[in-house]
């Protein structure tokens, strides 16, 4: 799957340190497949105890329909390593999250699931926070975000992840191609590796 440009309204969740327990609570982690995880997205922020939607939560607004970009506070995705977090976001149609920083494991997990973590400078972030539901464009190939004001800012991404997303490279396939290097490494280390005998 190749990652295409995104042009979407933005849903704004101006909270720092949103942890993966909020993105998807642990009780949704008993599944042995990826199916249906979207139901758990921000469950306890999104719904009351009886399952009815909380009317003030951003993703419950009528404008949230079809939104592909989420803008959040600093350090998004901290906490547990659960890949269920990006799975749940993607199943809700989110293709990019814009913040000032991301937790390491979440960032890695997101990139492996066609979910783009976009880090923008503080001033651009401030503009986005003030512009809920405005239209923003993200061009991964050019590594740019077009802000609601029309200003264009660049964002960083490592070259390998970018290639994987833009060209649809399969990471595991890429690793499997290096089988002979792995075998050579194992041969060299026999006796010096701690194995489970």
């Amino acid at each position, binding site marked *: 799957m190749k990652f295409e440009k995104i042009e979407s309204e933005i849903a704004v969740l101006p909270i720092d340190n949103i942890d993966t*327990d909020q993105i998807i609570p*642990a009780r949704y982690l008993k599944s*042995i497949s990826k199916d249906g995880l979207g139901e758990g997205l921000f469950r306890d922020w999104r719904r009351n105890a009886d399952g009815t939607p909380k009317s003030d939560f951003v993703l419950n607004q009528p404008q949230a329909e079809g939104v592909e970009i989420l803008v959040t506070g600093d350090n998004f995705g*901290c906490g547990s390593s659960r890949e269920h977090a990006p799975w749940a976001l993607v199943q809700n149609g989110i293709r990019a999250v814009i913040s000032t920083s991301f937790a*390491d494991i979440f960032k890695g997990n997101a990139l492996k699931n066609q979910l783009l973590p976009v880090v923008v400078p503080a001033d651009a972030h401030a503009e986005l926070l003030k512009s809920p539901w405005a239209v923003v464009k993200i061009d991964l190939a050019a590594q740019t975000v077009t802000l609601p004001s029309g200003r264009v800012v660049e964002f960083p991404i490592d070259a390998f992840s970018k*290639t994987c997303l833009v060209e649809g490279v399969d*990471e595991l396939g890429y690793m499997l191609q290096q089988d002979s290097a792995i075998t050579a490494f194992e041969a060299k280390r026999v006796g010096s*590796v701690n194995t489970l005998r």
Partner: protein
Amino acid sequence: MKPRTIVEKIWDSHVVAEKPGAPALLYIDLHLTHEVTSPQAFSTLRERGLKVRRPDLTIATMDHSTPTTSRDLPMLDTVGKAQLDQMEKNCKDFGIRLYDLKTTKQGIVHVIGPEQGLTQPGMTIVCGDSHTATHGAFGALAFGIGTSQVGHVFATQCLLQTPSKSYAIRVEGALKRGVSAKDIILAVIARIGIGGGTGTVFEYQGSTIRSLSMEERMTICNMSIEGGARAGLVAPDDTTYQYISGREFAPKGADWDAALARWKQLPTDQGAQYAKELTLDAATLEPMVTFGTNPGMGIPISGAIPDPASVSDPIEKSDLIKALKYMDLEPGKQLKGHKIDVVFVGSCTNSRISDLRAAASVMKGRKVSPSVRMLVVPGSMQVKKQAEAEGLDKIFREAGADFREAGCSMCLAMNGDQLEPGEYSVSTSNRNFEGRQGKGGRTFLASPLTAAASAVTGVVTDVRTLL
């Protein structure tokens, strides 16, 4: 040769291949796995017709969804049961050693690795679990990965990785009575914030760290992720070697001598560079407790709950207001003396034998407050057995606490052990996120000593008043 940190040394010895423009292929010496983050990775293997490359370097356990009530009872949670059954099938189909609920070696994945001598200095260790940093206490580079990467390690025994920078965290001097490893790490996180270590590996150093036991070092390394670092480690020393020696998977005879010679090369060279440094004076530390909804929101037990009015950053301010609202706490007040409903002693942070001994030392001859429900959950069946041999189970039971079978339990409330909405707990676990211990539950993180003292009095307590 340029002086290197321990992290650089471990990295250098595990690079299988490096291509320009791509992350390095890093070899993984030990892959730990559990029922929650592995099923979709096994599915990937099946879909692609792949095997587990090194089942001999892979170990599985059941801990997250497992009940902590008697193992003889049928499991009532059918969805959780299906997950455990799937784990059993996956391990059987792919030839992986599994410590299931029937074995005497089952336990929380980060407790059983060290306990069995699987965790050794200089290794690369991964698990689909963010608290894998626990194993760093042995001078291993250990970090959590997502399920896609679990699949990568199954299939290739490697990961695509870029090196992390090292962050030196030095703690110097003697700890005061009643102050423990948990208080050190909570103080570090309160200082740097939960994103403070992002992109780095913590190397814990200094005379205080050197004087700690392996179990205490594990408590500290365990919570590296709460400081934003994916990994944290302590260079190995005699304390490390003594702990490993004689354990089931520890090298023996000539292999031991060879291993020891290798391990002694690991500590950071004089003059090696750190990207960041922090020094704490152990003598200034008090028992710590968190008041908010992330592990960085911690205060010394004599301190006051911060006032949002004194915070200038607008998001930080609204986050603090949100946290205090969720916790239903008033700024400016002390947390000490706040009524609690539940005490949880357990989790991969504080469920080892030394933690149970610490809690029992406070509980002995005392009773759990009638308004408090206390759960003591050993980290492994081995820990449970040891606790029983020492009579700790009796101390807990006589005090009125519930002493359980091994598992993650109320650390993440997946197995039925959980807080009711609105309840307050003092917990020895590692996360106080909203709903972490049960929907609507409110968590104060603290040490086993503080937890036990609070169980006795029914309010958040300075353990030093009971010692």
